[in-house]
């Protein structure tokens, strides 16, 4: 043991904005993105720095963002506008471009706001909303090719396939490590905490991939001999739902205070963002991997039986022996909140209870949320 993951991540994250600033001064460009359908490997292959912008949890930033939308917008997207305007979050000021595959259409409109009011240049990546359609792969490939073209214009050099292969290899190694940690959570007495793992996953979207890899390697080796010697969780709870942003700590905090934690997640800033490896080290290989990811809930599917997200959830229920589900959604996130009723029905087959937390970044519902989570944990324990 001896390795302190939290301290390691904290230090790396504290130093990262300055490190990026220095690289920018040396002529490197920074591309921000919001969605996990943007392949960072391609961006890194051009020596451009990819940074995922997914901070939330700030009432102030959200309120600032509402000046550009209306108060009836998703607090995450409004917050992303607010962070850019207020300067509260350093990464939001550092980006030269925004690249995104607009899967969530509120995010797509948010990009337009950035472009119009902050002059940020946009690189829009085609992404098929009908990701299960015959032509989906072709369309996504088209989007990736246009991303490459844009990067070639920005950097003035063509895509180096060797460098791309290197970046893919690093990313795959990072993913393998994350998969290893998620596997650990399947144990009856997991040696790691989900909240630590999620911290690491979130950090990986901000840190340099090699730095992430070395932290993960250290963490992994610190666990040698300890696997299976952890403690039993207070309930085996799966976290699913919409954006569970970086610094949106309300639910995490409540869970920690009540002595609970999640056993696994199905969120885009969690397992969904890091699972699966890229096969062939080229654009079709990348397209295939990202397209075959467990789909984001913002991508509607017409058939319940064949919906890959539902299939994946069913697999998680079984593999992780889930006995409770917390479904977290932000206000005005229809893509996820409209799915709660359906999931509740599915869960009744497994006799798994579901707690739906529908919140925003205000503190006003903290007490109520705590009571509900507490009651939920108690009901699972009984």
């Amino acid at each position: 043991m001896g390795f302190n993951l939290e301290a390691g991540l904290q230090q790396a994250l504290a130093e990262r904005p300055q490190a990026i600033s220095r690289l920018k001064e040396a002529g490197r460009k920074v591309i921000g993105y919001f969605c996990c359908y943007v392949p960072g490997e391609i961006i890194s292959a051009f020596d451009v720095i990819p940074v995922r912008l997914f901070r939330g949890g700030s009432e102030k930033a959200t309120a600032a963002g509402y000046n550009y939308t209306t108060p009836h917008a998703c607090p995450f997207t409004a917050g992303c506008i607010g962070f850019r305007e207020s300067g509260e979050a350093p990464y939001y000021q550092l980006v030269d471009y925004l690249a995104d595959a607009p899967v969530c259409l509120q995010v797509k409109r948010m990009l337009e706001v950035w472009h119009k009011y902050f002059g940020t240049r946009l690189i829009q990546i085609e992404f098929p909303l009908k990701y299960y359609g015959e032509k989906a792969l072709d369309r996504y490939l088209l989007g990736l090719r246009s991303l490459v073209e844009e990067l070639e214009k920005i950097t003035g050099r063509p895509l180096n396939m060797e460098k791309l292969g290197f970046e893919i290899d690093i990313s795959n190694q990072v993913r393998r490590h994350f998969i290893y940690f998620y596997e650990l959570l399947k144990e009856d007495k997991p040696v790691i905490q989900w909240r630590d793992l999620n911290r690491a996953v979130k950090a990986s979207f901000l840190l340099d991939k090699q730095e992430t890899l070395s932290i993960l390697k250290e963490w992994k080796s610190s666990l040698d001999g300890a696997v299976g010697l952890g403690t039993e969780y207070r309930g085996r709870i799966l976290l699913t739902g919409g954006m569970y942003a970086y610094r949106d700590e309300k639910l995490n905090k409540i869970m920690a205070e009540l002595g609970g934690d999640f056993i696994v997640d199905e969120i885009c800033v969690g397992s969904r963002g890091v699972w699966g490896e890229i096969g062939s080290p080229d654009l079709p290989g990348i397209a295939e991997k990202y397209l075959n990811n467990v789909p984001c809930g913002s991508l509607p599917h017409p058939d319940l039986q064949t919906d890959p997200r539902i299939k994946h959830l069913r697999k998680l229920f079984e593999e992780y022996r889930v006995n409770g589900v917390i479904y977290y959604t932000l206000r005005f996130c229809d893509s996820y909140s409209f799915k709660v009723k359906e999931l509740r029905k599915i869960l009744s087959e497994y006799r798994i209870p579901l707690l739906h937390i529908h919140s925003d970044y205000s503190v006003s519902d903290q007490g109520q949320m705590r009571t509900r989570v507490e009651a939920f944990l108690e009901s699972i324990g009984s």
Partner: protein
Amino acid sequence: MRLFDRLLKTIRGPSRLSFAISLAKSPLTMFKIKSLPSITGRKIPALRIFYFLTLALKKSPGLFQFRLDPTIGGFSELTFLLLSLDLRLDKMRKKGFRVVGKWPANPTDIYFAAGCIALDPFLFAYCRMIATGENMLATRGRGELAVDACPAQAAGYTAVTQGIITLDTFYPFIGPWCYDSQYCFEAMRYLVEGHFGEQPIDFSGKNSEEAFSYMLTEVKKCVETLGRLSGRQVTAEHLKAEFALENKLRGYLRELMDLMQRKTVPLGSLEFIMAIFIASDWLADPPAMEKTLSILVDSARKRVSRGVQGKGVSENPIRLLITGIAWGDLGLYNIIDDLGAVIVGSECVQNLFYEDISLAGDPFEVLARRFLEVPYTLTAEARGRWTVENIRKMKYIDGVLFNCNFGCNYQTTEARIVTDIIKKETGLPCLVTNTDLPNEGRGQMRTRLEAFIEMIRSKAKCNQGTVAKCK
């Protein structure tokens, strides 16, 4: 006559004979109701419309809280088509028609040409709430979907899941606007077997051919699937015939909007919005709507030529364009008129009728292009510029309202960009409003509208000009 008989049986209280006599004496007979053709091939007799209305209006207390002018030709027929929609759909399904759920932006041509009935359950359910004067459909839907769901989505969801209307399938084209609809249809998938077509998002100019080719494939797939459902071998001729019919309808709506911008305003805000909003989806029956609109537009034309203003419209009204989604709370339109203004245009439904669909060329290709060109599906910037172009074409316009429905993820993220462009390019004042369920927050809205209208009026006085100056 089955519908007629059914309705007759529902009469309670006075005997049928005395009821019929009282109807005959009713002032409604003055409204010169015309019989309507129907998509089913059978005529809808004027008497049935009249009789239906006298009964249906009793069940629609919500309509009585508004100041409506039923003397406009075609308005009774329009109200009939609206209030009888669920009954007519039942009848159509019994005759073998298949009802397909779509959402507001999707042109209806593709559905009707494929031999199906296009239905926007959200518009239907919203209208139902207005007619009944209670919001149970939306509140119930919100209980099932989300507390912050758009009221139209929530109501539409309830209408389908509670069996108030039956969909044989849904086939909306998912894409860059009305995001909530796609999730709402998805939430119905446990009940209705459905499909999604896709409208590509934001292809840059250089990719537009790929976008078009993809859209074309999606259009053909949709036609094929719907054709299988209806049992019709859909040909180019079917599509062209539908375009021709619906172009006529689109033409009427454009003309109606144009008539609203004459010196004499022929309709009050409410009658105008009801006409273009309710009619824009043809209420499941394009032939019936064609006749209805022809009567309505003719009536408006006559009013303009005779200098007869719409009921409630003041002498020199402030003329407003409503952008975003039109208010679902119809009472607000009466308030606008009371405050000395009038709504003379709506950007929202204009998306559906802004121009004809070309009859030249391959109709599948034409339709694919149309899907890609609907202004709401463009970027917010392009939408703003399109609105500015339209404003410039308008003869009289004093201010712009932009309304967001509570829970509408689309309008809320576009409001600022679109109104900023309008303000910058035209210099017109803009007011962004947020509305929710009908009859809610009307007092506060009245205050805001009053201040906005007063501001426009005083500005005009300060400039010693007149309001509604010809541009």
